[in-house]
């Protein structure tokens, strides 16, 4: 191939991409291809390839991807609603003093009347902290604790409606809060007969059907529901058995679990349908850690600390855990005394929206993925 061939083929290639080719180049290419079999073949194959469509994606692939996005969108809505509920419940709940610190509404350090809570302070490192009595914790932790308390309040309200009315007087959920959740659920969760409430008055319990936490445990690890899977169980490899009632309301039952082509996922069979579940993980030091839990037997149950790891007596880990820095998302992690976080760590409740433990009112335990 000579320099002329190279020049002509380069022009043909540019023309195929819609790039500008001069009239002279076009004329030259046309004449040359009439005489040069090699360049004519080059043009011919390019034309053939332009007619050749790009590989077409299967409809079920598109549906699976869109379904994954829908699940994420739904989860985000729920978390947003839950955060709003937490904020409102916090506003309705007097803190350690007689008056909510939020009422002060100042950018300066805010202290309640009794001086027990002080917001917007900074420690010696410049980190924003909250002082509760003579105790100082980070603002991030404080917000997490408040959010956890609010979630707990909601759980109490739900329990009250189901007949557990012992702590009814402690629960307050505003109509506005319930509306947020109802909208976020798009009808999946029914909130009916919500009472109009006066701030400070004891609430009659609203009815909350449906589950926010959609987890199963498989080999002690926690998997989150991701949506309906396509295909047939006959084409899948069995991975084992998962014991869960899912959202049926029945007693927990053994269900077939299958390996998924997607790493970190399993597929569970439920009355002929296939359901995708994804391993719940977080990263620390660029390593992946999976969420471990005692057995979760139905949707609505949150992952809990595995056997042998006691629940800390206080929000800073108490005597159970030592704070050991933060994971890759900046979330504080805790280790058993004298242990390295590489072998496993705990995360306190109250993590932000988007965190893999978001919404969980309990401590969680994470161990490295093999």
């Amino acid at each position, binding site marked *: 191939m000579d320099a002329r061939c190279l020049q002509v*083929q380069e022009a043909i290639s540019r023309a195929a*991409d*819609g790039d500008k080719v001069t009239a002279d180049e076009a004329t030259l290419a046309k004449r040359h291809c009439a005489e040069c079999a090699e360049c004519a073949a080059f043009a011919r194959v390019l034309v053939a390839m332009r007619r050749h469509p*790009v*590989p*077409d994606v299967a409809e079920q692939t598109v549906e699976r*991807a*869109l379904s994954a996005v829908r699940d994420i*969108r739904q989860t985000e809505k729920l978390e947003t609603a839950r955060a709003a509920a937490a904020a409102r419940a916090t506003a309705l709940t007097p803190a350690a003093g007689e008056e909510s610190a939020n009422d002060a509404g100042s950018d300066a350090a805010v202290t309640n009347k009794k001086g027990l809570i002080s917001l917007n302070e900074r420690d010696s490192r410049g980190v924003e902290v909250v002082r509760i009595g003579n105790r100082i914790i980070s603002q991030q932790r404080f917000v997490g604790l408040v959010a956890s308390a609010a979630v707990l309040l909601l759980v109490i309200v739900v329990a009250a409606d189901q007949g557990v009315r012992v702590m009814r007087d402690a629960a307050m959920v505003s109509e506005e809060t319930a509306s947020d959740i109802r909208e976020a659920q798009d009808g999946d969760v029914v909130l009916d007969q919500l009472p109009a409430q006066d701030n400070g008055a004891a609430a009659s319990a609203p009815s909350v059907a449906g589950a926010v936490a959609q987890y199963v445990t498989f080999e002690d690890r926690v998997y989150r529901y991701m949506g309906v899977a396509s295909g047939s169980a006959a084409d899948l490899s069995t991975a084992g058995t998962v014991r869960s009632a899912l959202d049926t309301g029945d007693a927990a039952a053994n269900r077939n679990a299958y390996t998924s*082509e997607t790493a970190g996922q399993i597929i569970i069979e439920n009355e002929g349908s296939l359901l995708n579940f994804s391993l719940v993980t977080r990263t620390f030091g660029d390593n992946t850690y999976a969420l471990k839990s005692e057995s979760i037997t139905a949707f609505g149950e949150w992952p809990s600390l595995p056997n042998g790891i006691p629940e800390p007596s206080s929000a800073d880990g108490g005597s159970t855990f030592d704070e050991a820095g933060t994971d890759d998302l900046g979330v504080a992690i805790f280790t058993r005394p004298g242990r390295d976080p590489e072998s496993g760590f705990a995360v306190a409740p109250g993590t932000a929206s988007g965190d893999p433990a978001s919404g969980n009112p309990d401590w969680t335990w994470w161990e490295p993925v093999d």
Partner: protein
Amino acid sequence: MVPGEQPDEASLVEAAKGGDEAAFEALMRAHASAVYAHGLRFFGESSTADDVVQEVFIKVYRSLPTYDGRARFSTWLFRVTRNVCLDMLRKGTRRPVPVDPIDLVASRDQGDHAQFVVDTIAIEEAMRALQPEDREALGAVTIFGLSYQEAAESLSIPVGTVKSRVFRARRTLVSLLDTEGGDR
């Protein structure tokens, strides 16, 4: 999005950014084949390409608020798709399937040549025989419809390099797919 209406891409993008689920899904459906094709040519496996589609859709959903519209959506989508593939490769969860060009040359001697040229499988196999950087440049231009300039900006290489990579890719493809002309 109004049912039955055929909005232009910019309208779809704006609506999707505003939380319109139907607009988001219409947008992604329109580009799904390009994403899949890039994944398929990158990894050489349809099952992995399926995973690429899902990862890209999720990434686009999460990142769409940061898309500022300065580049065309297809240009931005190409970058997202490319990054997803590179991330999957870096994490070691997926590896490209190597293809020996010798196998391709041997196979094309069988059967009708014209049929071979238009045969989808043969072309895709030939694509996988390209140098990754050449295949990437060719894909940016032919799958995502990027101009040389847009491809250059997306790949952070000079325009001239894009042209030469695309040209080199085509010459390699022609040499693999054509028996009458090529320089073999």
